[in-house]
């Protein structure tokens, strides 16, 4: 694959895209896992399908449509949740289905042959274009900058949002900002894993890092590194075996998560046994 990497532009694009996707996965993944926003992220990702469909119907870049729909879903879910009175999982479920339904409708209404939508649903990192790469770079830079710039505020907000509000922090701004960051992350990951598989890539590296490191900053850095290894390894397997890249990366990520979980459980069991034996002595 190394020789091919120097030879083919599409492989270089795929590799750069994997690394950028790992950065956003690591940063936002840890936040959504700790803040328990995994389902909300799934809702935003699936709503973006409506934007992909609109892009095809109206004749503009589908990824831009996905971005617009993701941001609208983020603001919509956020506003309804803040107003209260409706359970958040109900709102997320409704946005989730509405986005998919609108996408299906728009694509059905698109004149001519039905467009190739599999790459948006399941990812196709090997078909990343230079335009996609620029968009991914800009979005990744925005996510990275916003997280680093407000790191201490994020920490206070994530640990205890109410206390942050009480001391006068503008938590509504952080709320919406986080939702927009999730929307940007989803758009970055659509090319890598696709709308349907995006959740695994968002959560697996963060969850593995959570098992290994105790501090927020460490977890973010580790999740970026783990995401990088998983994406590049998945890409390599996919290229070598000539199978779907998104599915390959996701299967590898989920397998690694369960392997780490099993290894950790075994380690803790052995540690407890040792401690028990020592106590007996």
């Amino acid at each position, binding site marked *: 694959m190394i020789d091919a990497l120097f030879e083919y532009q599409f492989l270089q694009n795929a590799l750069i895209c994997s690394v950028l996707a790992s950065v956003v996965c690591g940063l936002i993944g840890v936040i959504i896992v*700790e803040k328990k926003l995994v389902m909300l992220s799934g809702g935003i990702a699936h709503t973006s399908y409506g934007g992909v469909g609109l892009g095809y119907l109206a004749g503009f870049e589908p990824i831009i449509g996905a971005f617009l729909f993701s941001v609208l879903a983020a603001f919509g879910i956020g506003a309804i949740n803040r107003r209260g*009175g409706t359970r958040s999982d109900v709102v997320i479920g409704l946005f989730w289905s509405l986005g998919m339904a609108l996408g299906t409708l728009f694509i059905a209404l698109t004149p001519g042959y039905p467009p190739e939508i599999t790459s948006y649903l399941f990812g196709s990192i090997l078909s990343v274009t230079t335009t996609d790469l620029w968009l991914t770079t800009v979005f990744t830079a925005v996510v990275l900058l916003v997280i680093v710039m*407000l790191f201490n505020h994020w920490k206070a907000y994530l*640990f*205890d949002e*109410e206390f942050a509000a009480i*001391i006068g922090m503008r938590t509504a*701004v952080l709320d919406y900002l986080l939702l927009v960051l999730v929307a940007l992350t989803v758009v970055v990951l659509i090319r890598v894993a696709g709308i349907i598989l995006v959740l695994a890539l968002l959560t697996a590296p963060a969850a593995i890092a*959570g098992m290994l490191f105790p*501090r927020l900053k460490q977890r973010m850095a580790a999740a970026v590194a783990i995401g990088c290894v998983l994406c590049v390894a998945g890409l390599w397997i996919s290229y070598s075996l000539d199978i779907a890249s998104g599915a390959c990366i996701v299967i590898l990520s989920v397998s690694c998560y369960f392997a780490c979980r099993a290894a950790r459980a075994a380690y803790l069991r052995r540690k407890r046994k040792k401690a028990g034996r020592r106590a007996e002595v």
Partner: protein
Amino acid sequence: MNGRRPQPSLCDAQEALCVENLTVYYGQTPALENVSLRVRDRQYLGIIGPNGGGKTTLLRAILNLVLPASGTIRVYGKKPGETGGLIGYVPQYAGLDRAFPITVREVVLTGLTKRTLTPFYRFTPADRDTADALLEKVKIGALARRQIASLSGGEFQKMLIARALAVRPRLLLLDEPTANVDPSSCDQIYTLIEELNAKMTVVLVTHDLFAVSSQVQKIACLNRNLVYHDETGLDEDTLHRLYGCPVDLIAHGVPHRVLREHEREDTP
């Protein structure tokens, strides 16, 4: 427009806490109805009452976390939402994620975090020293670098008190700080609150009648309405009505009132 002028607030700016005719609804259900309450500077008020009686709702209204349907709240003359830095809050233990990846010192530092979202805001060495001093004050200085997941219930509560103190409050609100805490840690926490009361006003919400009554200067009984407050006298009938079980009251000199521990019985 009905042409009626808003009633001027009767609250005194010198009062630590003034609540007048406060009514709060959750949907169609009233949580508080016409509650009035006054606390002077450096007083120690204990709020007792049954579950669902509105104790936490009252604190949340003072903290501007719920919007009242009517009524007035003033903290040292300021409206809720304008009190930044005046109130220190210790929330209920169960409301926080103990698995969150954060150290004890970092939790206290969140109380020192700048309110405005200043880019690249970092804590100074002085901030860290302040956090460590506060942890020493609540007697868990040695745990500064520990992850919060490894703390006991009592240590966790002390950490939350240290975080509340980081704001440098004039009014300290504590919501059941001894729930899920062992008796020895309970004593330590109550002693600590009593020490803090020398420098600030304290409002303590609790179910612990026995412990609180040996410490507080005023007791308010809240069961949607304020059943008792201050001078009108807290009698056994009132407590019986409030809790639905007999509660014995033993006079213990002014201004303390002592409630003997009791076993809950079915209301006849």
